[in-house]
């Protein structure tokens, strides 16, 4: 191969690697003041495993202690949707919820470090309720009380966490309100804006954050309020305070929506005030399936058993023209539909223009919700974030020391040629990390250890080549021939040893889990990078050097 091409390829690989590793801006949910907020962070695009960034790993299985489950795979499919729905409540960035094998669900929650929360995922029963939205403006009536309460108690987390931005000025908060503020139920801050209470119902601590939908929006319904997504954490926190809970309107419950919606460029999560007593619960539901109606678009049809049908008919006939929220695990599923007429055994939920997938999902959730599969935790691992950071720090220290030791050995023994190997080692490190970033491989603690170890082993190919060159020189060959022959003879040993190691790594990948899999990936990336750097890069360095100087061809420092 032409020397220019070789240099070009090496430079190209360096450029690609640097690009792959260049810190980039990503939007992440980060924990701040105990709440999750969106924030932009700039970081190297290397994925860290749970053991390095902290978080929780769960494996869930069907709990058969309360009865045999015939079709576990199907049961797990149903449970998956419920679990995913619950995980959304955690507010974790990049959660993983997936089916593993036939009868297990794997859940990964980066950043969560409280093992007790794991129990929430499985121990809440999937509970389905139909509840009527509040028509009495109970929350509006309670607002002055709530605002006063929050003012008095001087909430600790007073500063609203609006998307990680610091400038949560009053103007910013005011902009949360629409023209029609008559039904405002906000939880805004305890500040001077309380004075402006007047018609707005008092933009106090609570009332400021929660607002009804814009009046011009079609299908405005009683009991529905919007909260900017960035304020959800704060409002949740307010709502969980015992004093606030005591002051909430009696016989009403407040539930978040499972969906968010975008309005005027801001993401909102609807909040619903519902009659506490459900008109019916999912225990009577026998089936639910998605369908498409020519007039109403996508719908979900559900079937109740006899008793459920009777109750449902009675209740819905009393609530015609009211809005009925479908609440699963205390989350309102979709926008509550209006009750057009009494519903009996067979009801339907119109999806409001959503696609068939959404209808399928809801049907699955309804079935799962009404027929909950008891789940148990088969396996849980939780790593604190500080421990993860500490591991990274120690791993990097060990890596630097390993590099330093290897550099000393190589330079001390092979001198100039050793320097070439050291340069190749630097490229090896760069290429390996870039390969990990490029393939979005997850870097785990064993992976990090494997990477450090590979620093010591990566130079093996160079050692093999150098020893061969020395032998050829000892046989009286010229420098150029010795280098050519050295590379040629060392090749079979390098290929055979690396391929067999790669095969072992592949087996590890296939049979390993989590951290060990990360180890195998690092090993594979390392083998590929070390072959490139030791064989191709060092060879090119020699060629460049031989071309540069005449004396180079007389004696080789090796």
């Amino acid at each position, binding site marked *: 191969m032409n020397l220019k091409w070789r240099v070009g390829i090496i430079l190209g690989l360096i450029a690609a690697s640097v690009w792959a590793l260049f810190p980039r801006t990503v939007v992440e949910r980060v924990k701040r003041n105990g709440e999750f907020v969106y924030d932009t962070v700039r970081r190297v695009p290397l994925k860290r495993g749970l053991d390095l960034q902290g978080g929780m790993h769960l494996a869930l299985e069907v709990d058969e202690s309360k009865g045999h489950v015939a079709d576990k795979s199907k049961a797990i499919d149903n449970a998956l949707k419920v679990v995913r729905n619950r995980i959304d409540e955690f507010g974790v960035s990049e959660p993983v919820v997936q089916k593993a094998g036939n009868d297990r669900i794997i859940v990964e929650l980066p950043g969560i470090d409280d093992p007790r929360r794991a129990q929430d995922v499985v121990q809440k029963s999937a509970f389905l309720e139909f509840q009527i939205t509040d028509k009495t403006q109970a929350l509006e009536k309670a607002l002055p009380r709530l605002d006063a309460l929050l003012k008095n108690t001087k909430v600790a987390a007073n500063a609203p966490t609006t998307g990680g931005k610091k400038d949560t000025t009053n103007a910013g908060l005011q902009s949360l309100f629409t023209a029609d503020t008559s039904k405002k139920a906000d939880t805004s801050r305890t500040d001077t804006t309380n004075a402006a209470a007047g018609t707005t119902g008092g933009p106090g601590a609570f009332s400021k954050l929660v607002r009804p939908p814009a009046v011009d929006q079609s299908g405005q319904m009683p009991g529905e309020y919007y909260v900017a997504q960035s304020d959800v954490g704060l409002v949740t926190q307010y709502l969980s305070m015992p004093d606030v809970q005591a002051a909430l309107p009696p016989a009403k419950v407040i539930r978040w929506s499972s969906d968010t919606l975008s309005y005027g460029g801001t993401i909102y999560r609807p909040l619903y005030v519902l009659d506490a007593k459900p008109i019916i619960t999912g225990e009577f539901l026998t089936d639910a399936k998605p369908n498409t109606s020519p007039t109403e678009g996508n719908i979900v049809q559900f079937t109740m058993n006899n008793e459920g049908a009777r109750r449902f008919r009675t209740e819905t006939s009393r609530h015609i023209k009211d809005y009925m929220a479908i609440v699963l695990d205390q989350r309102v599923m979709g926008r509550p539909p209006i009750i057009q007429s009494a519903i009996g055994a067979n009801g339907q939920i119109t999806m409001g223009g959503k696609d068939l997938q959404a209808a399928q999902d809801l049907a699955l959730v309804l079935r799962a919700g009404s027929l909950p599969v008891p789940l148990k935790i088969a396996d849980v691992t939780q790593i604190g974030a500080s421990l993860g950071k500490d591991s990274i720090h120690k791993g990097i220290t060990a890596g630097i020391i390993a590099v330093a030791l290897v550099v000393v050995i190589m330079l001390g023994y092979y001198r100039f040629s050793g320097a070439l190997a050291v340069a190749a080692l630097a490229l090896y490190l760069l290429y390996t990390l870039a390969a990990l970033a490029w393939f979005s491989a997850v870097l785990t603690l064993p992976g990090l250890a494997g990477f450090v170890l590979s620093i010591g082993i990566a130079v093996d190919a160079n050692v093999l080549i150098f020893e061969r060159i020395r032998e050829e020189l000892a046989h009286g060959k010229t420098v150029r021939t010795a280098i050519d022959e050295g590379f040629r003879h060392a090749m079979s040993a390098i290929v055979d040893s690396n391929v067999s190691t790669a095969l072992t790594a592949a087996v590890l990948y296939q049979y*390993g889990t989590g951290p060990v899999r990360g180890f195998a990936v690092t090993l594979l990336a390392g083998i590929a990078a070390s072959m490139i750097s030791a064989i191709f890069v060092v060879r090119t360095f020699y060629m460049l050097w031989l071309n540069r100087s005449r004396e180079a061809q007389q004696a080789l420092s090796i």
Partner: protein
Amino acid sequence: MLRILHDTNYDFIRWWKVMAGITVAFILLGLGSLAIKPPNYSIEFTGGTLMQLEFTQPPDVGEIRSALDDAGIHGAEIQQFGSNRDFTVRAQNPSQVAAQAKGAENIAVTIEAVLKKKFGENSFKAGRTEAVGPRVGQELKRGAIVAILLSFLITLVYLSIRFEWRFATAAVIATSHDVFTTIAFLKLMHLEISLTVVAGLLTVLGYSLNDTIIIFDRVRENLRKGRKETLYETLNRSINETLPRSVLTHATAFAATLALLFFAGEVIRPFAWVMAFGIVTGTFSSIYVAAPVLIWIERKWPRKTGARQSSSTATPTSRTRRSPATATR
């Protein structure tokens, strides 16, 4: 040019009986110790709960134990882990594992609750919690064994293609030897067998195999040269010729391992120990297991005298060719 062990001519293989004695004794010591007391498996394999607790004040281990005993968690192993404020608590009794069949988090939640009650709400932080139900552990154990056996099989096939079956078998036997010595080492060092340690073991196997392959590659090359010498001599020559490479590579690999051992923290330390021992046993087995086994196989099932292997007609191995070994075929 700095050279070490250059142009040596040691008769390495002559010592194989002594070395075999040493390694067999070591393995027997390890296995005997295993027979008396089974190895420590990590909770990943047995099921159970491990918590790594970081206290704000150095706690009294006795108090931790009595608090756990009062809560019905008996026989939990409490160990210092790094500084005197860091401790690990391991509960992996069969009864505790059984309790986790209902839900793996049970024991962990109890431990945290009783210790908070005893030492105060903010007296410690759980840096790491691992809780594994019995079934997951069983599956992992099977997975680890399958992984090791499968990697042997694949290696055997690959080397049979690249070399030939005699070399492949000798290499795999040498590598199996390393599995046994490493298990003995783990036992004698009281290291816990965890998933990371299994990964370490597989890395050792890869490393040892590497080393054997480098020597066998040289043997293959020397055989092609058709020198008038026995396989015994060829093996010795090849080991000597690759000696500088061996020293250098083991030195750099060992340097990286030492960095891991001393600087990478407690979690990685068992892995680093396995690797450190692996470098030793891998080197040893390439010379004292792979080579004698190859000679032995060659004697029992000699290669056909090909154009390239004309040299082997002069080997003592080929002299026995027409004797019992062939007769058994």
